[in-house]
């Protein structure tokens, strides 16, 4: 007959676990480690080229430019060695570039989508073409980054854009009941001008709070319990540490862009209605003709699928595909299974269109 004894090891391990916890919460993990070199800068924005590892003759001809959101660091695309989308794509023979928007200062409070899409992006892309020696290129936009790439692709369809990958893209704001951010930023409750008058830019802390408050228990409690439960597993602790480092390193969003995001998109859904005007040019999605892959995270609570799934019907592209995958907004690209699911799919789709 079995009898229960008190497991002293569990108690004795507590000091060691507390030290690990302190290390993880008090230090920053080494993220974004893939070697890269800056090839262009403008204001806070920098265009990086990742050092290729595949010899030039074996590489795909068409370079790939990554564009991430405005209010987070793009390090999530290159989270940690052995688990990095950038590293994966470089190893698969792509010439990979990253447009890092940097952190806007108070002097950048008027920057808006027009500046990002018609001033910064075309200049960075010109440099990319000069360095790569290729007149065509592919764009991968993620989250707010995909708003920028979509606007750019529709406004500059003849600029050489061959393939557009749109990841968890918040583009369609018609179904307000399903979009929590749309409720919170409704004009009845949220005075965008008052916030920007006070801060100039949308503060990083407020953006971080907003993102976490969508699932408060998971983000403020469950996430830390998950760490504690797995604190003896160095592999899981490293992964958690890297993600925590990224999640807690947010940046402000330029006031002008935030104003457009809330008023023109969240409230008035102008992009999908083809009524968005950028520097006097109307953004007509029918003019977007690049090959398009829309990646939808089925369990995305930040950008629900309804915000992305209508894009293919709106654009003028002939070659278009929608890829739905179980997972959350970040998890589909940075989760533990991303290298078996999302990344190979993106690679397969892009490889067929990059030579």
């Amino acid at each position: 007959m079995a009898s229960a004894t008190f497991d002293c090891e569990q108690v004795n391990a507590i000091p060691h676990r507390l030290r690990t916890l302190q290390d993880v919460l008090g230090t920053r993990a080494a993220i974004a480690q893939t070697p890269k070199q800056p090839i262009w800068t403008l204001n806070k924005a920098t265009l990086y080229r990742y050092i290729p590892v595949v010899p030039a003759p074996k590489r795909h001809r068409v370079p790939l430019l990554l564009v991430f959101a405005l209010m987070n660091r793009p390090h999530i695309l290159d989270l940690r060695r052995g688990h990095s989308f950038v590293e994966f794509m470089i190893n698969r023979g792509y010439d990979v570039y990253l447009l890092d928007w940097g952190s806007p200062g108070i002097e950048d409070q008027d920057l808006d989508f027009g500046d990002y899409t018609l001033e910064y992006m075309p200049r960075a892309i010109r440099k990319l073409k000069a360095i790569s020696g290729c007149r065509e290129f592919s764009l991968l936009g993620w989250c707010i980054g995909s708003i920028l790439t979509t606007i750019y692709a529709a406004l500059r369809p003849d600029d050489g854009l061959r393939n557009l990958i749109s990841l968890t893209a918040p583009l369609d704001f018609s179904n307000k009941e399903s979009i929590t951010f749309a409720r919170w930023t409704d004009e009845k409750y949220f005075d965008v001008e008052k916030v920007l008058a006070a801060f100039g830019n949308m503060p990083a802390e407020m953006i971080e709070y907003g993102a976490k408050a969508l699932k408060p228990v998971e983000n403020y409690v469950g996430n830390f319990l998950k760490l504690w439960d797995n604190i003896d597993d160095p592999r899981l602790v490293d992964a958690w540490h890297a993600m925590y480092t990224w999640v807690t390193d947010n940046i402000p969003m330029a006031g002008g862009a935030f104003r457009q995001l809330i008023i023109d998109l969240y409230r008035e859904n102008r992009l999908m209605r083809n009524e968005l005007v950028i520097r006097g040019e109307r953004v007509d999605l029918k003019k977007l003709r690049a090959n398009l892959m829309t990646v939808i995270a089925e369990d995305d609570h930040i950008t629900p699928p309804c915000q992305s799934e209508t894009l293919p019907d709106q654009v003028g592209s002939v070659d278009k595909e929608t890829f739905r995958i179980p997972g959350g907004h970040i998890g589909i690209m940075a989760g533990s299974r991303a290298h078996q699911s999302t990344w190979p799919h993106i690679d397969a789709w892009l490889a067929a269109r990059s030579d």
Partner: protein
Amino acid sequence: MSEKTNEKPGSQESYDPFESWRKARDAGMEAWAKTMVEYVNSDAYSQASGAMLDTYLTGSAPFREMLEKIMVRALDQLGMPSRADFASIARRLTNIEIRLDDLDAKLDRMEASRVESAPPGTGRKQKES
């Protein structure tokens, strides 16, 4: 049909003091999380959070403005630039960067047309690997 177990008669099962706490915790977490998600998706939450933010912004505005005025005056007295001065200089620098980028683009175009017009084998730019 009986289940096979690895337990040997007389063996001692170790007792993890945290296990029962974990089970109780996990049982409650899911329900708590669901309730909270429902709450943050309600109009009541939107209204409450909006009101809190508005109260903070309205209440702090006079202090911010006063602090701003005092700082500007103090920096002016000390002969030091204010935040607005720095912002203005930064914007001017960005404009200069844009001009430089335009020049860079022109040089690239000139180089490209020179290479294209050069006879084969003379002066062709080595493509970067």
